[in-house]
């Protein structure tokens, strides 16, 4: 067992965990943050995407012990109180989900891509969104409404300062 401390959604969290504990298990089992979903557990589906130090990563393919001291943001940490994040609102407005299982990962990936394109000054075109989504699999929607939701959220986030998304 190793003592691991990370800041999750703004709060410091310390747990004693085996060295083999995955970040996804640390979040779900230790912190009971079950919004981060585990779909494939083989790093292909993207349902477990969270932000580690501001970058989207697959929580099923990272060791908690390796992230001692890291800042982690999960789907539970992006709303401001009762006000949803623009990406969450856009998924709602555009019906970017059906069963909802992949949605936490889609939203965390969506926020990450908008922030990266914003920082680089590159246009986040529909083609770019589809390319950026290749690590997130949805078996319900056919992706069209997910892409529309991210396009919409990108416009709204463009107006806001970058830090507001985290």
């Amino acid at each position: 067992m190793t003592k691991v401390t990370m800041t999750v959604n703004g709060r410091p969290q310390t747990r004693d965990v085996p060295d083999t504990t995955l970040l996804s298990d640390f979040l779900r089992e230790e912190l009971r943050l079950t919004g981060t979903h585990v779909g494939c557990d083989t790093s292909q589906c993207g349902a477990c995407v969270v932000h580690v130090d501001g970058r989207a990563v697959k929580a099923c393919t990272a060791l908690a012990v390796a992230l001692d001291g890291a800042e982690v943001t999960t789907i539970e940490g992006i709303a401001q109180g009762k006000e949803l994040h623009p990406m969450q609102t856009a998924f709602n407005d555009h019906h970017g989900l059906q069963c909802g299982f992949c949605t936490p990962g889609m939203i965390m990936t969506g926020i990450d891509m908008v922030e990266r394109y914003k920082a680089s000054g590159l246009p986040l075109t529909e083609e770019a969104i589809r390319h950026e989504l290749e690590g997130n699999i949805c078996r319900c929607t056919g992706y069209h409404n997910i892409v529309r939701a991210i396009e919409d959220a990108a416009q709204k986030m463009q107006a806001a300062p970058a830090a507001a998304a985290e």
Partner: protein
Amino acid sequence: MYPTTYHKPASLSDAAAALSASDEAMVLAGGQTLLPTMKQRLASPSALVDIRAIPELRGITVSGATVTIGAATTHAEVAGHHGVQQTIPALACLAAGIGDPAVRHMGTIGGSVANNDPAADYPAAVLGLGATVVTNTREIAADDFFEGMFATALDEGEIITAIRFEAPKRAAYMKFRNPASRYAIVGVFVAETDAGARVAVTGAGADGVFRHSGMEAALSASFAPEAIDGCEVGEGDMASDIHASAAYRAHLVTVMARRAVAGAV
């Protein structure tokens, strides 16, 4: 996964000591291959030595035509690095196409090269550009480094510290990828250098990444897509699995090579 003990040394010498202290220790560089492999119980390292906290293993330096990339540098960092984009655009482009965005935020060049997966992208760039693999004990030429599927010239306990590339006149990487795994079914890296053309093929070979001498000779004479029209790609040397037959892979090698030559910058 089987139990293991995690180490995060802050120096290269501590990392080497931790590696040699445990019989079945392995380096953890990004974990995007190693952790899934451990989950499947196909790997059971007694210890994991995480090299990401060693400062000299991170980062990119560009000096004239030489690009040196620290082993623990992520694919996203290589893809987004202005100096790499300017000096060896084909390398930045290759890094931008590995896996998916989340994998690129964690996976590292050193991990990819040390693992030498037969369908990985970086081995094609390292071999295609004739790069140098720098370790904690020596420097290894790419031509001497890759020794077949998942096999390299690395000794027990030897750690890659950096990969050093010399910019070619022009180069490109084209891959035909498996849409689910994002690995190359066939990937071809072509480079025109002062010493002639180099062609490295990944994904296709039954024994991992390889150079195609016939195409290299043809392209050294004339660096144009049609120059390789007569080159033979032997089916006998190709991998065959549920994703593609040997004949299909052999055909794709020529198609990808032509596209790479046509797109070389």
